């Protein structure tokens, strides 16, 4: 009989103790699998929520007068349009952005009242992101008109608006935003540069800031230092509230996971270890007998370690199935926006089927050594 045959027969005989140990492994594996399966969705969800809140990094021309900036809501200075391309090059060097938008804004008079003309370049998207972000893509020759402007001028979709002597088709009248966006007219950056006679220039780059930097204590300081070196013609301000809320959320989640995972591991290891210890005690005589039959210490230790390996293997598969099922069932409830990102991850199965047996073997290592060390004469003498 091979060691594995003996192990399987013993497992079948002591079903309940096996199922109890199995429960420990399955619990640990299922929790980790569920956590990692939803982790991706959770991270994307955070990004999406902040994107909905708006841009939270504003990169401005260096010589911007901040009093003017806050009074008008935009910088009256300019920087070259290719700054955005140079900024994009630093992706993954000291920042990770979701996307960057270069813009040019100026106040002009339209029928006696001020409107802000905003020229937006197509977003530069982080390589990892791949897809274009949501939001409006503006076609050349068309504009989106803010709520207040549309009301005052009686504009509607399909109408026309004249800006600095050039006619544009109204692509859309925006819903009331309750911000200065209501007196904005959004056009394509190149169109706006042309009518303002500021070709090749922008006055702001908006970005969703990096995911890792905000987890640090003062990301803005680092960012400013780096930007000073890389893009000396810029300065940066951060919309604190948004960034902080996000960083806090992420840190809370990380702290929770950091506390939770070792705790689960220790509890499950102790659980398996205690059951293995009871198993060794129950099999005292059997171990003595195997000694009398000429079994070596190694072979006896193998009986116990192989058993935990079987336990880990079965636990890994079951735990993976249950963890994935949990993630797929409850994940979409929790992460409503990015539910699509929750898919079974077969890489986790591979991981679990290596880690769980190793973990179970480690948890039963001490009982196995005790089994080997015990005095066979002692156990054979008694009942």
């Amino acid at each position: 009989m091979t060691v594995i045959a003996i192990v399987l027969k013993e497992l079948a005989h002591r079903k309940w103790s096996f199922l109890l140990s199995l429960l420990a492994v399955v619990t640990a594996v299922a929790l980790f699998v569920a956590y990692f399966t939803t982790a991706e969705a959770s991270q994307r969800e955070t990004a999406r929520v902040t994107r909905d809140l708006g841009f939270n990094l504003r990169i401005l021309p260096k010589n911007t007068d901040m009093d003017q900036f806050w009074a008008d809501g935009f910088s009256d200075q300019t920087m070259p349009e290719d700054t955005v391309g140079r900024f994009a090059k630093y992706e993954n060097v000291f920042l990770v952005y979701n996307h960057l938008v270069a813009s040019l804004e100026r106040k002009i008079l339209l029928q006696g009242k001020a409107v802000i003309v905003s020229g937006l370049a197509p977003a530069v998207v982080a390589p990892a992101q791949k897809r274009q972000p949501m939001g409006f893509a503006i076609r050349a020759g068309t504009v989106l008109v803010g709520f207040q402007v549309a009301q005052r001028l009686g504009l509607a979709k399909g109408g026309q608006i004249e800006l600095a002597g050039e006619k544009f088709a109204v692509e859309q009248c925006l819903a009331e935003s309750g911000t200065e966006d209501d007196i904005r007219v959004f056009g394509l950056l190149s169109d706006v540069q042309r009518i303002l006679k500021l070709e090749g220039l922008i006055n702001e780059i908006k970005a969703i800031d990096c995911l890792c930097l905000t987890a640090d204590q003062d990301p803005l300081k680092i960012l400013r230092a780096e930007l000073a070196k890389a893009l000396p013609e810029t300065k940066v301000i951060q919309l604190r509230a948004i960034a902080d809320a996000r960083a806090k959320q992420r840190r809370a989640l990380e702290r929770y996971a950091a506390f939770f995972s070792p705790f689960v591991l220790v509890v499950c290891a102790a659980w398996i270890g205690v059951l293995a210890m009871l198993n060794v005690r129950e099999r005292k005589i059997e171990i003595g007998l195997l000694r009398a039959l000429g079994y070596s210490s190694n072979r006896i230790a193998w009986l116990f370690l192989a058993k935990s390996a079987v336990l880990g293997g079965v636990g890994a598969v079951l735990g993976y199935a249950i963890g994935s099922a949990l993630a797929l069932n409850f994940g979409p409830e929790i992460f409503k926006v990015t539910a699509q990102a929750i898919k079974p991850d077969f890489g986790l199965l591979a991981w679990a089927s290596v880690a769980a047996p190793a973990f179970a073997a480690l948890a039963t290592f001490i009982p196995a050594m005790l089994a080997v060390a015990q005095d066979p004469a002692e156990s054979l003498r008694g009942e």
Partner: protein
Amino acid sequence: MVRFENVSKVYRTRAGEVRSLDGLNLEVKPCEFIVVRGPSGCGKTTLLLTAGGMLHPTSGEISVGGQALYSLNRRERAVFRAREIGFVFQMFHLVPYLNVIENVLLAGSSACVRPNSKRAHDLVARLGLASRAFHKPAALSTGERQRVAIARALLNQPKLILADEPTGNLDPENAAEVFRHLEDFHRAGGTVIVVTHGTMAEEYADRVLQMRAGSLNGS
């Protein structure tokens, strides 16, 4: 075949010293059937365990088949035991999750001997257990259990069988059957040392030894 030279086994406990074996001398010739008798606690089990290489004596020399047992290391002793010595215990010590055949085969699975399934089946049949071959120990009578244990002890064709009160839990009929099987082994050239309380063994014995307080008289 078995030789004890001035063997002592002393347990040092907090309650004091216990001399299980006290300067014991014994010479068992090949193909001898020895019966050892003696009061409880006189060291009979200790004698068998030391003879089987399971228990290191405190002092003295023990050799089996000319091999000094305790000059071997643990691993070598285990191999020697698997090949040369069969144990039979009063409590049978069958493995509860294995059936009759598997329990017998367990003796042939220790890596240093080759498992022999045909011999296991032959032995089980010879001991009158053919119809119970695939039953678990819990489903067997005590007499049947001890016969399984004997089959297990015989599997590797040992030269020596050490039996510790093998009939202690059996009725006279089953006890007689156990002795008949030990006698068969003996006739085929095996050496047997049996520890027993009963008198039944004596008709099979070449020699009966009386043990008292860790040593033997009549050797």
